[in-house]
């Protein structure tokens, strides 16, 4: 390589190329614009009153922009709460709010959140939340927890919200303050730093919501059983919907049409004038179209002679009934 090329390579490294080659120092390191301006304001202020306003301003930007901008907004909001948690009567409340923001940033920008400052802020914020009976074990550092790849939203909350509320200061603002909501990704697992303890985990999918309480101590998070998808029955006579449809379970009991779930057993669809039909519900949920077949009709023509009603009944007309079936029949009386 000529000397000139070496010189320009060194100049490039010194002018910032080297800095970009390494991991960012915070999720805001590569962000510009309004979110970066908020982060800069947070870095320059000492005013505790400004921290709460900055946290709220930043939180309002978390759902807009590029993933890096959103991560920076979440990091700025979490950091502002973290600064507030350094002292004061509400420090546990503020620390929980900081954890929420910083975990959100971790979800959006795992690389940026792996640097020393974000890792330290998240760890310290978790420790300031303290030990909470029924939720967080005392004095444990956060552990890496993997959320499986899939669709849906996960809400992580204290297993004992009442104990958290007491620890937080028993104010109304404590309700839900320690809850963390994470949008899961089918593209890959998400790693979060969670304090070991007991968590209430609520999984929301397009099919519904499932909740369970589980211990967390690192590793893969145990999700609640998949919520079964709702199923609707659309009984049809050709292209026409059928009225007065009744749904029956295997024991013949009537079912509420709004309560059908994909994990339910086979269902019998019945309607007056139609053959009942037994169907299995689709595992993916949705609307199941069930074509019903009209009952066979037996026509009996009776020719009446003499006084009215005194006629003689004749054999039924119409299609033959199937053996063993008590098919309804129409009797026609003739005079």
């Amino acid at each position, binding site marked *: 390589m000529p000397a000139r090329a070496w010189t320009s390579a060194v100049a490039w490294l010194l002018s910032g190329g080297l800095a970009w080659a390494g991991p960012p120092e915070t999720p805001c390191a590569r962000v510009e614009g309004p979110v970066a301006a908020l982060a800069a304001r947070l870095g320059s202020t000492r005013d505790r009153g400004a921290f709460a306003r900055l946290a709220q301003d930043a939180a309002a930007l978390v759902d807009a922009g590029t993933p890096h901008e959103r991560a920076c907004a979440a990091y700025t909001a979490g950091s502002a709460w973290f600064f507030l*948690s350094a002292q004061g009567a509400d420090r546990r409340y503020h620390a929980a709010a900081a954890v929420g923001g910083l975990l959100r940033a971790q979800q959006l920008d795992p690389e940026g959140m792996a640097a*020393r400052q974000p890792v*330290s802020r998240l760890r*310290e914020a978790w420790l300031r939340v303290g030990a909470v009976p029924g939720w967080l074990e005392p004095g444990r550092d956060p552990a890496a927890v993997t959320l499986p790849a899939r669709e849906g939203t996960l809400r992580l909350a204290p297993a004992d919200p009442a104990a958290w509320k007491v620890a937080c200061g028993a104010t109304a603002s404590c309700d839900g303050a320690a809850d963390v909501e994470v949008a899961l990704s089918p593209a890959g697992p998400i790693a979060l730093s969670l304090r070991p303890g007991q968590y209430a985990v609520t999984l929301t999918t397009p099919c519904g919501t499932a909740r369970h309480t589980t211990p967390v101590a690192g590793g893969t998070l145990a999700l609640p059983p998949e919520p079964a998808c709702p199923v609707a029955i659309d009984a049809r006579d050709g292209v026409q919907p059928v009225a007065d449809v009744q749904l029956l379970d295997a024991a013949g009991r009537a079912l509420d049409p709004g309560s059908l779930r994909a994990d339910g057993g086979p269902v019998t669809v019945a309607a007056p004038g139609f053959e009942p039909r037994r169907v299995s519900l689709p595992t993916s949920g949705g609307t199941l179209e069930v074509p019903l077949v009209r009952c066979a009709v037996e026509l009996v023509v009776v020719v009446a002679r003499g006084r009215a009603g005194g006629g003689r009944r004749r054999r039924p007309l119409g299609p033959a009934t199937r053996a063993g079936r008590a098919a309804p029949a129409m009797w026609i009386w003739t005079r």
Partner: protein
Amino acid sequence: MTRALEGTGDQRWIAYTGPRPAVASAILRDLAFAAQAPVLPDPEVERTWAELSDPVRAWVAEGIDLGGVVPTATGARVPFERYAEVHAVRRNLNGIGTFWVAEGRLPVVESGRCGRLEAGDRLFTARWSMPGYTGGQCSGAGCPDRLERAVQKARSVGERLQVTLTVARGGDAGTRLDIGCRVAP
């Protein structure tokens, strides 16, 4: 200028012989930095002394107690036990400066990297803060140690440390100045 070990038992001393300024300078250096009674010039002591700036040499000299040093016709002699005293030590605080510290004395700046801090400034107090963490303050001889721990803490958590130093310029009774700086992690 020569040194010689004289006396016996508990009554031993180092006798310095030579021109008076050379003897005074050697005694000063030895009492300030020699780890033990020096029969021969200690190259480490000589190098340390040579590297000091004038204001720091003045600070070192102010701290030397010449009690027990006996002038003689050819120079002076210094009792053995005087060399066992605790010496000043250097403290390098990243991003703030290098200080010389001695028990019971205001630390002195050897070289400053914090704002307008200058060599020879005497450190009265220091205050520091770090966003999101508890700050601190210190005064006197223990200050550089505490400040060093704060700098290390700030580095370990990746935070910027805001430091305010109150110093005296022109000796312990000199002009007081507040000097601020931010120390990057």
